[in-house]
């Protein structure tokens, strides 16, 4: 065999480069996302814990209620009535989508297609 030494060195280098991302990140986790809520002094439609765990469920129920049943009013656990609308209720408060929604969604690798249609004024500047 010719140049077996060189071949082996080459293979070692190749394996080292190919597996770099794995051993480089060993023992370290990606930093926890830190979503920022910009609006102050306002309460979300439900409690923080509930929204954290179940906002996706709530939004799913909302979209069917508003669109299919034509019922655009939601009564929350505090007995308050809220207009059902992602764009006009949720996004009016959480106007900083990039720092609020996106931080967690990016971290969790969840890509909701809500934003393909619903938009927030700030983000829409990028495509309009």
């Amino acid at each position, binding site marked *: 065999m010719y140049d077996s030494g060189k071949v082996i060195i080459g293979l070692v280098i190749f394996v080292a480069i190919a597996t770099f991302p794995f051993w480089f990140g060993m023992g370290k986790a990606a930093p926890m996302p830190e979503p920022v809520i910009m609006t102050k002094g306002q309460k979300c439609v439900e409690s923080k814990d509930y929204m954290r765990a179940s906002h996706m469920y709530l939004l799913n129920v909302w979209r069917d209620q508003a669109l*299919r049943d034509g019922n655009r009013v939601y009564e929350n656990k505090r007995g308050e009535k809220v207009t059902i609308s992602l*764009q006009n209720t949720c996004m009016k408060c959480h106007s900083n989508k990039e720092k609020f929604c996106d931080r967690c969604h990016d971290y969790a690798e969840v890509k909701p297609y809500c934003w393909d249609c619903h938009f927030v*004024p700030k983000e*829409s500047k990028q495509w*309009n």
Partner: protein
Amino acid sequence: MELKRRDFLKIVGGSALIGGSAISALVEEAGIAHASPHEEHGHSAEEDHGHGHIEEASGIRWAMVVDMRKCSEQEGCRDCINACHYVHNVPNFPDPKEEVKWIWKDEYHHVFTDISTLDPYVPEHIKRHPFLVLCNHCDNPPCVRVCPTKATFKRPDGIVAMDYHRCIGCRFCMAACPYGSRSFNWRDPRLGLKGRELNYEFPTRMRGVVEKCNFCVERLAQGKIPACVEACKHGALTFGNLADPNSEVRALLRENYALRRKPQLGTKPSVFYIIA
């Protein structure tokens, strides 16, 4: 794992190719839609009594009356179209193949095909003016019948609505609608909104869904009238409840002779035209 809309489409596309069942369903449904004039008698026995089931669930049956006597006086006026297309962020693609429209003007002989072919004696001045057309929110909508996902559906108040979350873009509904009232988003609709003023209260659509006039359900929910009706300064458009004998639309229909488009198809449109 969550199935994305687009992945779902791929699977549906694949299975449609294999089974061919979807295509035969389309042919069948289209056949029914177009065959209805010949079946009129069969139909009329059970359901053909105009807006017979008006009082259905809600006691409301939304309808529109277009008074062409007033509309045709305003040549080139596009107030209603502009208002609608702004309020709903309807994209603007000039190429007719990609065009998206909710309300627009069309020539007489496209709008009233049956009458113009049957009656050559329609006065010229009536044929000359473009007619305002939109989704007719049919009582018996073929678009709803063929939609495999129930993305398009009829509400208890008679509005034929779209749930864009569910539309898979198969365009069966476009094939079924005898009025060409539906548009398909071939391109990302946001490309057609570049540089335009947007309505931040209403979403856009995404590529690959069908869209059309929704009789402003989102405004009706707030107690407003449709944007086109509000925008028409000349009083050519009237919106109201057909189920209420005292409504403005009923008064107009009582006092004037009004036409509906393609009545022989049995779709029973809820848009009425006062011609003269």
